[in-house]
């Protein structure tokens, strides 16, 4: 149960990070101005968020897989 919950939370956090990266990149809802993000630093933030998001999703999926297997 703990494994499934943590796996799900981690995957959701990762997924939100990826969605946020694309929102930031395409400047939906004028989010770049809202967060005072300059165009020079945008690639760095995007890269960091994408790496964080991807790792979180994969790690979370491992835990989810284990959670479902043990049922």
């Amino acid at each position: 149960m703990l494994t499934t919950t943590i796996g799900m939370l981690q995957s959701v956090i990762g997924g939100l990070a990826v969605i946020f990266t694309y929102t930031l990149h395409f400047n939906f809802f004028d989010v770049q101005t809202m967060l005072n993000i300059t165009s020079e630093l945008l690639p760095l933030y995007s890269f960091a968020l994408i790496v964080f998001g991807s790792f979180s999703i994969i790690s979370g999926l491992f835990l989810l897989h284990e959670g479902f297997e043990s049922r």
Partner: protein
Amino acid sequence: MLRNLEKQATEGRAEMGKEGLRRELGLLRATLLGIGGTLSAGNFVILGHAIGLAGSAIVIVVISCGIISLLTMFSYCELGTIIPSAGSEYTFAKVAYGGFTAFITGWFEWLSNMFYAALSSVGFAYVISYFVPINIPLTAVLMIIIFTIINIRGAKEVGTTESLLTLTVLAILAIYVFSGWLQSQAMSPFELSAPKGLTGAFQATAFLFELYLGAEAVAVAQGEIKNPEKTIPRAMILSSLALIVIYTTIVYVTVRTVPPDILGEQASPITYVAEHLMGKLGAVLVTIGIAIAGLAAINEAIMAQSRILFALSRDGYLPRALGRTHRRFSTPHVAIVVSSVFTIALAATGFINFIVYAVNLGFIIGFSTVNLSLIKLRRRRPRLRRPFKAPGYPILPVVGIGTSLFLLLFIEPAVLIMGLELSIIALLAYYIRMIGYTRIRLAFGGLSLGIGGFVALLAYLVRSGFISLTPNFPAITNILIFISAVHVLAGILNITVKS
């Protein structure tokens, strides 16, 4: 692996003879197949954006794309005749390199076909939207669902119908070109202009790279082609050359009739120009032609992506479940459904330009691998029987790789980041199969702990005022602590996995 090549080639040739299909496609019909496999509704829609980038120099861009594609088509022909049971980049890479190179090629081939299916469906919806006020993402999704069902039930790959449909589309396009040519006689001489300079022209080339994709459909139909060792290479090259003429005349007439800056704003520039040239009836006619091409392209892309996923599963790279076939229809239904779910998610966004760049990224990788596979097999197996030999070796394949990779510089950065992500996932999927699940989980456990620790440090720095956020979010520290806690716990759970 290389010893297996002769065996595979022999088996392939034998397979060609016992598929139970009658060999009735000659050079003309095989060429039509290559042309039909390439014409897609998406191609006519994306011309608008490309014209906006390159201006009237789009004519040169289209010819350049055709030449780059032709360079790889030669390699395709040679490999297709050595490994006749295949016909895809994945199989070529499997025979020439094997291992991770084969897997990553198959992976990107699957993804680019998936993106291509999304592009074709969104393109189809855009074309129809010129006359009928429809919801573009919803229509695109509906089309994918319909063709997924058709593919699960089993679609006949090649036939007389496809040749007739291609001829119909070509006839409609010929009427369009002829009308434009007649009207252009009374105009001032044509002038090439590129408002965004050379960079704009290169961006347009990277954007239109996928224009000529699909001529390899000839290789897929080899079971029905007369004298395939000779006919397939000829048909592939002839269809590539014919496509260069078709696309060049279409864009010439288009930019000649309506100024490029107006075309760049049109959802379906060809339909817009057709209405300008031939009135409402002409626009309807062109819409019908493009829609026919679009429907065939959606069907082919869905079929292709599921077959690659099926092959990757059959070769042990992906879970076995993806290789299951339907009891009643004998189709790889799991692979079809899985691929279609991703395609639907993509098509639902309606971001046509993003999807186009993604298609191009996948095919640039695929094209580079085909050329690399040719070079590798020429060096390792120089005496292998080659019914067709790619001309200009090694210069042309190297130029093919160089030009394809050069276009990567002009692809949307967000798509390149996504490509990097997809490569990481591919690497992971491959190594999970190769070096074991437990080790990978241990590595991810460590990474999660590291991220958790880093986020905790970040939370501390924000709370203590070392890092100031503008605008200030009071809840940010609590959010960061929560993320850190989840990652630390996930790290511990992943590390304590039982092997």
